[in-house]
């Protein structure tokens, strides 16, 4: 598969994503600069983590107006797969490709640790290799990961199976204690109504090799690959 990983001034997980996609999973992955206007031959886009534009104004607020994001929006509108990780999730929310917004962590502090996630709807390109309830251990590293959306939006998202990952304890219970940032409904990651654009605060690319204390993140990336392979075959 051909993955495109975006690069903004201040991105810092871009190389990690390329490394995992290329060297661990064996796919093509290339970096696209924010000034580029076309995605070229791309099966999926990764919007990586970091601090694009220094998080000035709001996280993701400036990156979302970059040239490449216009191409990403077109790609997503045509059904292309887009995954935003951490700052990438914030950018996709700012761009309106995903509902809601990410705000300052409830406890004010920057949280950098492994968390447990419970997979929701398994019927999406990002979760198809994880049966409902699958627990994933993946690290987070953010100061502004508290997910917010108004009550009506949350209701629609729940009804439509758009809440893909929730923070939980090691037994899968979504408790207040297991919620590192105060996200509503313990939300760690979501997708759009069409299920082709997803975002999450945890970093799957940092949990894709045993040497980095686990490979649960691969399940997410391999789900995307499986979905793309099935789509190409049909």
């Amino acid at each position, binding site marked *: 598969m051909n993955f495109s990983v975006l690069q903004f001034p201040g991105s810092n997980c871009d190389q990690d994503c390329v490394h995992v996609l290329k060297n661990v999973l064996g796919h093509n992955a290339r970096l696209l600069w924010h000034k580029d206007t076309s995605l070229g031959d791309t099966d999926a886009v990764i919007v990586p983590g970091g601090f694009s534009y220094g998080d000035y*104004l709001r996280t993701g*607020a400036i990156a979302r107006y970059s040239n490449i994001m216009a191409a990403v929006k077109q790609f997503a509108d045509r059904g292309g797969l887009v995954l935003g990780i951490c700052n990438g999730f914030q950018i996709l929310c700012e761009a309106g490709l995903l509902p809601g*917004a990410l705000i300052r962590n409830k406890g*004010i502090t920057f949280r950098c640790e492994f968390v447990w996630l419970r997979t929701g709807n398994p019927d999406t390109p990002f979760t198809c290799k994880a049966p409902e309830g699958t627990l994933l251990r993946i690290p987070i590293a953010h100061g502004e990961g508290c997910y*917010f959306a108004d009550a009506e939006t949350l209701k629609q998202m729940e009804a439509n199976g758009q809440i893909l990952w929730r923070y939980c304890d090691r037994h899968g219970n979504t408790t207040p204690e297991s919620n590192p940032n*105060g996200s509503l409904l313990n939300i760690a990651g979501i997708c759009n109504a069409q299920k082709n654009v997803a975002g999450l605060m945890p970093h799957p690319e940092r949990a894709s090799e045993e040497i980095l204390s686990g490979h649960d993140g691969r399940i997410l990336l391999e789900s995307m690959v499986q979905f793309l392979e099935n789509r190409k075959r049909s």
Partner: protein
Amino acid sequence: MKAKITVTPKKAVLDPQGKTVQTALEHIGFTGIKDVRIGKYIEIELEGTDREAALKSISQASHKILSNPVIEDYSVEIE
């Protein structure tokens, strides 16, 4: 002309900064504080003299980029 834009978190949105500052204010002896909300203040120097056009344009900018309508409210003043 100058545009003064105030951006504040919506009422329904958690404002942990505001809560922390409220606790600090109470800690150092300020009483009677019901709530603290922390937002942003932006000043933009403008060319021209058409206040109505400036208000329209800066309001658009506030909606499009200076604030995020999902979580924030804004007000614009032209002087």
